[in-house]
Structures are given as C-alpha cells and as structure tokens.
C-alpha cells in the first residue's frame, strides 16, 4: 500500500504558510516514498519489539519502546 500522490499534495498544500508555494510532481512522488518508508520502519520496529517480548499482538507499549529512536532516525 502506497500513499496516494493526491493525498500528499492536498495535505502539504493545507499546511503551507505561503499560499504561493507550489510543488513539483517528482518531489511529491519522493515525499510519498519517504512517508511510506517512515510508516513501514515504525511498524517493523514495533513488530520486532513484540516478537522479542514473545507477544503476537503489537501493542502501544511496544510502539512506545521504539518511538524515541524512531523519531531520532527519521
């Protein structure tokens, strides 16, 4: 599952401070790729943590443990 380019474009447009700011099509594709990697990395790290603890459900506790390092890495 990929982030749709339209979604990324609309979301960015909504959060620009200057209404004149525009964005290149290639740049949107790259940002979608970056976001995809961020989500995947977070999910995989949380999944790994759950496995290490011998659980078959990933819970917020697992996510909490990997969150700090994840935020430093992205």
């Amino acid at each position, binding site marked *: 599952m990929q982030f749709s380019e339209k979604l990324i474009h609309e979301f960015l447009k909504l959060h620009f401070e200057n209404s004149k700011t525009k964005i290149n099509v290639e740049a949107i594709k790259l940002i979608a790729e970056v976001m995809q990697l961020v*989500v995947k990395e977070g999910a995989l790290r949380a999944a790994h943590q759950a496995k290490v603890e011998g659980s078959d459900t990933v819970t917020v506790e*697992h996510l909490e443990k990997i969150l700090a390092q994840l935020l430093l890495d992205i």
Partner: protein
Amino acid sequence: MADEEDHLNKRQTLKAAIHFTVGRVCEEIGAEQDLTFSRHVIATLSELTSRQLQTYATDLEAFAGHAKRTVIAPDDVKLLVRRNPQMSAHIKALIETTEEEKGAKKKKKKKTKDSEGKSMDVDIETID
C-alpha cells in the same frame, strides 16, 4: 465561518485517508510476520505520520524559499532527509533514475526530429 468549517472538514478527511493507508501498511506487515497490530498502534502511527508531514510541509517551504523559489523541487526533498544516510542514499538514487529516464526520452525525441530532417533533405533532393 463556512470557510473555517470547510478547512476543518478537509483536514479531517485527509487525516482519515492517512489513517487508512497506515492501517493497510500495518496489515501487510502483520500478514507477513503473523502478527496483529492493535488499533491504538495504528492510530498512534497515523498521528505521527500526519505530524511528520506537517513539519515536512513547513521545512520544504523554507528550503525552497531559501533557494529563492516558490516551487518545491526534488532537491529540497534531498535536503529534508539528509540526516538519515540510508534514506538520503535511497532518495538520491531515485532522483538519478528519474533523471536518466527523462534524458532517454529527450534523446528519443531528438532522434525522431533528426530523422524528420533527413526525410526533408531527401524530399528537397528529389525536387532538384
């Protein structure tokens, strides 16, 4: 007032779309690893994603502004991920491949033009 409401609605819709995508990504990973992701994890991850995207929006705008542009270019994204060496290398490689593809297309166009030129030369010759 109506404008503000529209704005809020749009924000909610976009956030919901992000939540949907994050949920799907987690599902895929869960299926691969025989795990289930709790709803809270998906909600937290999507909140993180939308906050991250908000920061990216202002950062990219600032980067483009610093380069005296109003259009955000792929180079700004390169600058955005400079802190993570692996991500930086990945994005650089992606930019290079798209540039190569573009270059190949341009060459093709040039070639077709050249051949057109040739056929014209021939025409002129036959007229002579």
